């Protein structure tokens, strides 16, 4: 195994290489490396952006069931502005439209601290039934086989469909808080069964959903009509 090591006489200590040569070597290698990395970054950037946009698009269409296309809007103080024209930063609202161009629901983004790292997900909201349509996880590092069941458990995913998210009478927040309860014990509106073995992850999702919906839905309530198709 050690045949690749030099054997026999220990080599004579070589004369030290002049510093200029060392610097030139390292500089040359760094230059080549820099050129290589920059060209690859430039070359792959459009592909990576397209991938991200496509992943987001798929997630939007997954949480707004009837939608076939989506457009992004930014919620500003003055109302909903198409994302391309928005000047100010604000929460993104992805409006979904069906084949006839009718507004069918909106996808909103929420995030919360999970067991391992931040969980980011989209949830669909239908202003007509004032209910959640579903969720789709965008980013999570939850434990495979346990926490990641927030993405794969069909019962957990289904429990968000049609979840009541109506506003209270003053229109300042949700009428029923959305919260996670012990598995199998959900009976009131807004209650979601946590997943056995993934309690932390499922509670994180449900709490983040509540916080986001409780904050955004009252602010969005006056603006839903502006999302009806207006070309």
């Amino acid at each position, binding site marked *: 195994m050690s045949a690749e090591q030099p054997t026999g006489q220990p080599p004579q200590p070589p004369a030290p290489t002049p510093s200029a040569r060392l610097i030139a070597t390292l500089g040359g290698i760094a230059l*080549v490396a820099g050129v290589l990395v920059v060209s690859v970054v430039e070359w792959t950037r459009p592909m990576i952006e397209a991938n991200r946009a496509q*992943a987001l698009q798929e997630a939007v269409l997954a949480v707004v069931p009837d939608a076939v296309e989506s457009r992004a809007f930014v919620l500003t103080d003055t109302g909903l502005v198409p994302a391309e024209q928005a000047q100010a930063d604000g929460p993104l609202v992805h409006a979904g439209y069906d084949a006839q161009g009718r507004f069918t629901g909106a996808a909103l983004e929420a995030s919360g601290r999970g067991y391992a790292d931040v969980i980011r997900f989209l949830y669909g909201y239908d202003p007509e039934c004032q209910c959640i349509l579903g969720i789709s996880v965008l980013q999570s590092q939850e434990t495979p086989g346990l926490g990641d069941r927030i993405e794969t458990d069909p019962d957990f995913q289904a429990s968000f469909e049609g979840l009541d998210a109506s506003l209270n009478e003053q229109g300042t927040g949700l009428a029923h808080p959305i919260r996670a309860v012990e598995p199998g014990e959900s009976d009131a509106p807004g209650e979601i069964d946590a997943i056995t073995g993934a309690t932390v992850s499922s509670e994180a999702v449900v709490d983040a959903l509540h916080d986001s919906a409780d904050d955004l839905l009252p602010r969005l309530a006056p603006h839903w009509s502006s999302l009806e198709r207006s070309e």
Partner: protein
Amino acid sequence: MAGEREPISMDTFLRGIWRENPVFVMLLGMCPVLAVTNTTANALAMGLATTFVLVCSMALISVLRDLIPKEVRIASFIVIIATFVTIVDYAIQAISLELYSALGAFIQLIVVNCMILGRAEAFASRQPLLKTLVNSLGVGLGFTLALLCLGSVRELLGAGELLGVPVLGEAFQPWVVMLLPPGGFFVLAGWLLLFAWIKERRDHRAKTAKEATADGR
């Protein structure tokens, strides 16, 4: 064993796959071996990414071997390896974001995979280009195969699937622990036991055969 002037042979290539397999024989690069082999697809992607980095950086190091002074060789090797790791990192993001998030930080950590630096020190910095290419391909393939050995067993036992296709049926209760870090250790230990047993048996046979011929004389 290979001397510095030994010609290229099949052995230059095969050595990395079997007799000097980086995972099962040398026990090098254990971090990705244990961390990202929870599914066959992840193991394959990690193996191929490592192979790409290994082959490209070893080729460059072999070409530059006479230009790099001894004093700065480690720094030069690391910069060269890191360059190709960054390239792979962006390439994987461009190919599939899902794969990228599954492999997580372990793509960047290929930089510090001691198997690659070891190859650079022990082989590429002393051997001509063609021989280095052949050897690195063999070692990379050996690494990929070893990762696949772990990944397929872990996915099969941990999820009842192979490459995402269910194979063990509904009745199978997945052993979730196999997908978690301890499962990596269990499966690695299992494979190492198997290889140690095969080696022992072969040595034993060779010994008895030798004794038999010695008695026959």
